[in-house]
């Protein structure tokens, strides 16, 4: 793969098979051998091809249920694709209301585990540890298990880890909905500073202001299809037209 390309998607698609009754035990399967479950197919992402360059910030817009989140998960390598392939050049981080954290671990352990999963060395995590805690405003709760945290505290911690550790390719799914107003302002400030410089970002948002401000390109999705990928302005217009 060429070095300038961060994500290359070829002929990818995804269909979910949703069955009405759960046949997920051996017992169930045996007793219902001649009574197969009724399945409903949902085409979440229809055949699409595209490339995203390194360092680009691409917006993704569309109405609820149009397949944005599924597409993001396919690209991040969390879901396997049904057809085609996705080539990813770097570490990925998918973020929607926080990154993956275990409620059984303390804030300190979660920071180390998450940052390590994102490809950082322990030494480097030591160096940014205080910054992560400071940004999340969680001094005094470092060694508390996060199951005792309020949902806002968990979300702030997740956001702070993502901001400070980061990955080379980041999928941000509605991240500005985290925390109270003061924290949101802080989050936006971070976004405006040099955080995303040099990183590849795929930004999912319903806020057209955010998309307009940060994205050099935008994709517009409808019913699982990528209708348009190109100029931000044009994608937004198509989306607004659809909403009327």
């Amino acid at each position, binding site marked *: 793969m060429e070095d300038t390309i961060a994500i290359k998607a070829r002929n990818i698609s995804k269909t*979910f098979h949703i069955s009405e009754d759960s046949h*997920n*035990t*051996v*017992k169930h*399967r045996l007793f219902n051998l001649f009574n197969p479950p009724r399945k409903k197919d949902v085409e979440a992402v229809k055949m699409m091809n595209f490339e995203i360059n390194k360092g680009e910030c691409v917006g993704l817009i569309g109405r609820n249920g149009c397949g944005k989140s599924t597409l993001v*998960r396919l690209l*991040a*390598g*969390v*879901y*396997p694709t049904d057809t085609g392939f996705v080539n*990813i050049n770097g*570490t*990925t*981080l*998918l*973020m929607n209301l926080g*990154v*993956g*954290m*275990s409620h*059984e*671990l303390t804030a300190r*352990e979660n920071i*180390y*585990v998450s940052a*390590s*999963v*994102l*490809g*950082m*060395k*322990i030494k480097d995590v030591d160096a940014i540890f205080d910054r992560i805690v400071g940004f999340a405003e969680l001094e005094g709760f470092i060694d508390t298990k996060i199951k005792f945290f309020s949902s806002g505290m968990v979300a702030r911690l997740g956001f702070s880890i993502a901001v400070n550790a980061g*990955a080379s390719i980041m999928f941000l799914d509605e991240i500005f909905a985290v925390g109270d107003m003061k924290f949101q302002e802080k989050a936006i400030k971070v976004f405006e500073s040099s955080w995303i410089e040099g990183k590849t970002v795929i930004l999912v948002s319903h806020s057209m202001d955010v998309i307009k401000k940060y994205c050099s390109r935008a994709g517009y999705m409808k019913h699982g299809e990528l209708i348009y990928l190109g100029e931000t302005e044009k994608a937004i217009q198509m989306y607004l037209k659809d909403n009327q």
Partner: protein
Amino acid sequence: MIRNVLKDWKSRSNKYERLWLLAKIEFKLRYYENKLGLLWALLKPLMDIAIYYVAFKVILKTDIPAFASYLFIGLVFWIFFVESTTGTIQILNTKKYLYEYSNMNKLEIYISTLFSNSIGFLFNLSMFFLFYHLFEPQANPISYNNLWVLVLFMNLFILSLGCSLILSNLYIIAKDINQIWMVFISFLFFLSPIFYKLTSFKEALPELVYGNPIAGVIINARRVMMDGIAPDFELLAFDFGYAIFLLLVGIILLNKLGAKAAEKL
């Protein structure tokens, strides 16, 4: 292979560091976050030894020499196998937070959990070693052949990893695999030479010396750790074959079923 390892090391990958970090945290979680954690790990085999000792030595009057040590080494290996298989059936569910938000390789999750179990295993093995050489009156002297235990452990590790991969990936499509495995493993326990005399086991169930993948490991562990002789190489090769075969099946299942874990669980 070696080239890849060197390349990894050169590129300063944090993979090994991460495996160790996850293993340490797993170990801490397992043993109640207690400073006495390792003692809890030891308590399980000690309790089991006490039970079987009373049943077989005191009541049934078995004539196996050094019976406490005989049980001890068998149980140390058996407990690792049980903890690494039964204990990991739901691993893709409990460790979902690790792969749900990034493209981390799921195999790392398994290996780190087994590393965590290995800490307990190595501690228990050293306890066995001390017990055998300090308190067992009929003990054989320390021998170079004791080192074979590392090879046997590698065998056990691969076997457990394979079984763990198979079970936890089947769990995605069959949630009651847990109950089925529980029955199977208690069956396997009584078909393994853990508290039986080896000669009577071989006489009664000669097929199972080769048919049961864990039996050979336990038989060989006693040869190298207690008798101070080299392992039965034919049996060793056979058991390695088993372990590698199950590992391959496990990896295929991980790629087929495990890839869908994020959406199915």
